[in-house]
């Protein structure tokens, strides 16, 4: 118990009990939640994984990616294609998926960091490459082009557990993504305490000073990009086999990249639990807004014919503006202090 408390942070006893209870609730979710709640919870963990990956780049190493959908998408398409074309099970296909995502990350990193012109370039390149790859896949017929790439699912696939081929009941996907998200959390905690983590934070806070203290800034930035894009690639493999359909228009959409950032921003950039905490607030909130609108339409408070496509994003955007203006360190450090989840000065 104390080992767990120390590992995460140092968690206070209250934090440990609260966290443990929450975890138990989530582990038992298939028994108390319906299929709708399961779907939402799966999305939450999926976004937490992508967010954790994004936060590793920005929060730990100070590198802003605004095209994170790129790495997710590359992982998704790679594993899906290998499965459909040569029958490679995703449990193996995840390796080339990670490989390609990492290669893409390194290429962008190399172009962006080489001349130390400033963070803006890297950010712009991530989004530019995301668009570029989208346009390319739009024209690659063996990846389905704009018509989309589909994975076959039979009715029998929807029952049982086949982890190697990522085929099974919704519960399997739920537990898998939960394990991946928590695994990412543990990995990040481990990295943060390692040499890498120290060097990343130093580079984030002052690259010039880090360099003067013997840190090879370019190399450690590249490590951050590689690990982060690899994590995003794993998330992509899950996405592909959970959705079973990939459209460049959707997978590489800038909205996906923005989604990846939102949880961390709300939760707290650079904190360990920020990304997961943020998605646990945002995703259900988005669902509630959608439900509320449907209800209002149902009761004819709003004309049912009204199109409110943009409303959810409008609210999300507004939340981010508020957070950046008034709680730029995110909600997690604040919650930690309020609920005494961690010892002082441990997070934030």
């Amino acid at each position, binding site marked *: 118990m104390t080992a767990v408390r120390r590992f995460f942070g140092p968690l206070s006893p209250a934090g440990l009990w609260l966290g443990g209870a929450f975890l138990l609730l989530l582990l038992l979710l298939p028994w108390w939640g319906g299929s709708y709640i399961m779907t939402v919870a799966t999305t939450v963990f999926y976004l937490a994984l992508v967010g954790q990956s994004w936060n590793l780049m920005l929060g730990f190493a100070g590198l*802003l990616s605004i095209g994170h959908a790129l790495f997710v998408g590359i992982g998704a398409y790679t594993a899906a294609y290998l499965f459909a074309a040569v029958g490679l099970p995703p449990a193996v296909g995840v390796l080339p998926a990670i490989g390609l995502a990492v290669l893409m990350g390194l290429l962008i990193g190399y*172009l962006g960091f080489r001349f130390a012109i400033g963070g803006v370039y890297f950010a712009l390149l991530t989004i530019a490459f995301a*668009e570029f790859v989208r346009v390319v896949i739009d024209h690659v017929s063996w990846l389905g082009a704009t018509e989309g790439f589909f994975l076959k699912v039979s009715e029998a696939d929807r029952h049982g557990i086949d982890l190697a081929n990522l085929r099974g009941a919704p519960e399997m996907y739920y537990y898998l993504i939960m394990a991946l998200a928590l695994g990412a959390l543990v990995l990040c905690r481990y990295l943060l305490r390692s040499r890498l983590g120290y060097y990343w934070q130093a580079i984030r806070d002052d690259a010039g000073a880090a360099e003067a203290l013997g840190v090879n800034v370019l190399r450690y930035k590249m490590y951050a990009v590689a690990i982060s894009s690899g994590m995003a690639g794993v998330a992509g493999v899950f996405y592909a086999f959970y959705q079973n359909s990939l459209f460049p228009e959707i997978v590489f959409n800038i909205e996906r990249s*923005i989604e990846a950032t939102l949880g961390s921003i709300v939760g707290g950039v650079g904190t360990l639990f920020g990304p997961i905490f943020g998605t646990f607030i945002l995703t259900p909130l988005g669902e509630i807004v959608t439900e509320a609108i449907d209800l209002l339409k149902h009761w004819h408070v709003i004309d049912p014919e009204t199109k409110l*496509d943009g409303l959810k*994003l*409008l609210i*999300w955007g507004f939340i981010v*503006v508020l957070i950046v203006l008034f709680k730029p360190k995110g909600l997690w450090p604040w919650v930690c202090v309020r609920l005494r989840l961690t010892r002082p000065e441990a997070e934030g």
Partner: protein
Amino acid sequence: MDFWTLANAVASGLLIGLVYGLSALGLSVIFGVIRIVNFAHGEIMVMGMFFALLMFRWLGLDPLLSVPLAAALMFGFGYVLQLAVVSRVSHLPEHMQFLLLAAIAIMIVSALLLVFGPDAQGVEVDYAWDSFAVGELIIDYPKMFAAIGAIVVASLLLAFFKYTTTGKAIRACADNRMGAQVVGLNVSRLYALTFGIGAACLGAAGAIILLLFEAHPYLAPGYTLLAFVIVIIGGLGSLFGALVGGILIGVSEALAAVLFQPSMKTAFSFALLILVLLLRPQGLLGKAVR
């Protein structure tokens, strides 16, 4: 593929490129002075488009005549945005400012979506299908007028920076913020002015481009990206570079469309971007850092 097909593509790309250049100018002005990458770039431009659309529908105003109005409106928007919101985060790290503007961008797109819906809407002016020929070179009137409009606005802007006191003060601010403060310039007002001027460029560019393309909310991220590509190619912070980069992208897109497929044109721009970053990372007309 004969000579005249290519020549026509180049000519049309050149004309559109000038409008792109004007839009990129708006990004470059803001970055050059305030050192902020305006992520809401395309969104402000599309606001200009929709404004011109409304003017056309309500008053029958030609989009070109809406240019000054769109510019004035967006100037106000930019001025207030900088003064009331962006300036409050100047102490935060670069990425937070970036995220703030990204969030504002999302809000603008969503709001446009709520108001105007997701369908493309355009204007039809009397001269929409008119053109004239020089040899076998065929020039469309809308494209030519759009290019002329862009040149006029860009020239006004460059003249403003070169000859007016306020323009010079803004340039001084860009070179040395502390120095500008020391000599008594009101930096926060100049920053607001700068953001306003950048946004005015976008309003003008938006109104102009409505002559050529139909407006819809989802155009915005694409325009933002296009402007990013242009200023990186031209050199971040270089005003003239933005125009040159715009023309280059316009021509390369037009060539890609005739040589390959129209839908491949963005891929072409990115290839150009990567090439520039490999060979001349500070951009064609940018000053080398260090």
